[in-house]
């Protein structure tokens, strides 16, 4: 952590001196970690993001800069089902399948998105939860807004799709810090972080970072064993069960 901060400070200094004959605007940013290990006591994690805006030759916007950070988890297929009445019962009768849906979306900014840029601009740039869910070309009826909205609603309730318009803080007009909050049930995999700089309602520049969420040693080992040698895993689990059952009968023996 300290080494990272030092590296970051060094990067900041570097940009300050090296960019004297600067041209376009740019962002230099770093995450407090690029790997989130899931230990047995994992209940979620906060990743900090630090960034510096390099204004280049451009004038500083009169309202100040805006930052929108999009954190996107690994994409996968999702099936959305709807319960419908069937006689007296309510059963899962209708379903839509979606592909390339991010398992996690978090959009953090320094103020509400609708005040940073207009809806069309944001949609073009794929900024916002809805804009990150690609229109479905193959699946029958998947673009049905009822199902699409339901998927977003459920993921929001689970804390997997979030928006936070106060999670980016400007420390100086060109230095910012953001918090990325990962919930306990965060999906595993590779995450993309896109940092977009807005100036007067238009995109000035953007840059990307990456981090990984992976299980730590013991958890990873158990999960891998369950998948790599499933029969052995089942046998071992049964053996442990027998051992515990036997131990209990030894400890509590009364006759």
């Amino acid at each position: 952590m300290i080494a990272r901060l030092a590296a970051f400070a060094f990067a900041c200094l570097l940009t300050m001196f090296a960019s004297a004959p600067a041209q376009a605007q740019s962002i230099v940013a770093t995450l407090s970690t690029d790997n989130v290990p899931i230990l047995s006591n994992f209940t979620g994690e906060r990743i900090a993001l630090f960034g510096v805006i390099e204004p280049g030759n451009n004038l500083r916007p009169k309202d100040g800069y805006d930052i929108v950070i999009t954190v996107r988890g690994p994409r996968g297929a999702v099936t959305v089902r709807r319960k419908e009445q069937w006689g007296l019962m309510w059963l899962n009768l209708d379903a839509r399948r979606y592909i390339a849906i991010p398992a996690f979306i978090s959009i953090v900014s320094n103020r509400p998105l609708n005040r940073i840029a207009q809806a069309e601009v944001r949609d073009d740039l794929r900024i916002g939860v809805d804009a990150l869910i690609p229109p479905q070309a193959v699946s029958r009826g998947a673009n049905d807004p009822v199902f699409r909205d339901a998927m977003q609603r459920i993921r929001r309730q689970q804390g997997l799709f979030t928006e936070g318009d106060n999670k980016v803080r400007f420390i100086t007009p060109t230095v910012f810090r953001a918090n990325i909050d990962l919930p306990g049930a965060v999906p595993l995999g590779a995450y993309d972080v896109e940092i977009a700089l807005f100036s007067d309602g238009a995109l000035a520049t953007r840059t990307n970072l990456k981090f990984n969420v992976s299980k730590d040693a013991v958890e990873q080992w158990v999960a891998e064993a369950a998948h790599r040698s499933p029969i052995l895993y089942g046998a071992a689990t049964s053996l442990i069960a027998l051992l515990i059952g036997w131990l209990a009968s030894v400890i509590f023996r009364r006759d």
Partner: protein
Amino acid sequence: MEIYLPIAEMPVDMFLILGMGMAVGFISGMFGIGGGFLLTPLLIFVGIPAAVAVATQGPQIAASSMTGSLAYWRRRAIDFKLAFVLLAGGLVGTLLGVLFFNKMQRLGQLDTVITLSYVVLMGTVGALITWESAKAALRKNDKNAPKRIAGRHRWFEGLPLKMRFHRAGMYVSAIPLVGVAMLIGFAGAVLGIGGGFILVPALIYIFRVPANIVVGTSLFQILFTMIAATIFHSATNQSVDLFLALLLMVGGVFGAQFGARAGANLRGEYFRLMLGLLILIVAVRFATDVFTPPREAFSATQTETGR
């Protein structure tokens, strides 16, 4: 204190799971049942995926029936021949059950199947046990209680493949025994239950196995069907969560000891009446899920992940 479950891929409160294991262990020790029919719904209720909840019952029930089997074995209250005949049916049923479970999971109907089966199975068994024990409790002084009438045979007694079970004192065809065990093995694998609460009454009421043999024999056969279920589930859907199983086992083992002591002071008919009502409550809880309009009609499941 939270602990992260590697297969369910979610954190749970360790003491909540231990407590649930203990509470269900208490009840299972009291009634001499595995308690899977209570634990699976509880796990689903706290947010564990249904597939993981069902598959993880295997090792948990195996551990508690191991303790029970050892106690009955010391008392020589197990008819091993009967247990192995039941086991033959149980293993086939378990294998079919796991295959059916995987098929339903692929079709996206697993939750519905689990819920509906709980309603039907628990509703029927619960109502039967409650009815029978309420009747027995009401006319416990009546000397005209129906007894087995000599010379009158039930339909399955004419079947071939007759076997003699010395300890249980029976001479019956193996076909209905294997059939019943197969059905229970199937239900066990699909619902995450040991099936003791069906097997024990079935052996007593249909096959007239003496009460002192029946619980030990049933526990012994459940021990092996649950080991098979653990291995089949692990091999085909990788949903057995070792950490969750460990928590449940440790909680359950302790709870069962206290439950067994509490159960020893209960009178027979009241004991069965309570068990019947308990099963009925679980059935009603599931029935409300199916028969009332859901608050959230939609559900979203991740079916594939690109890692």
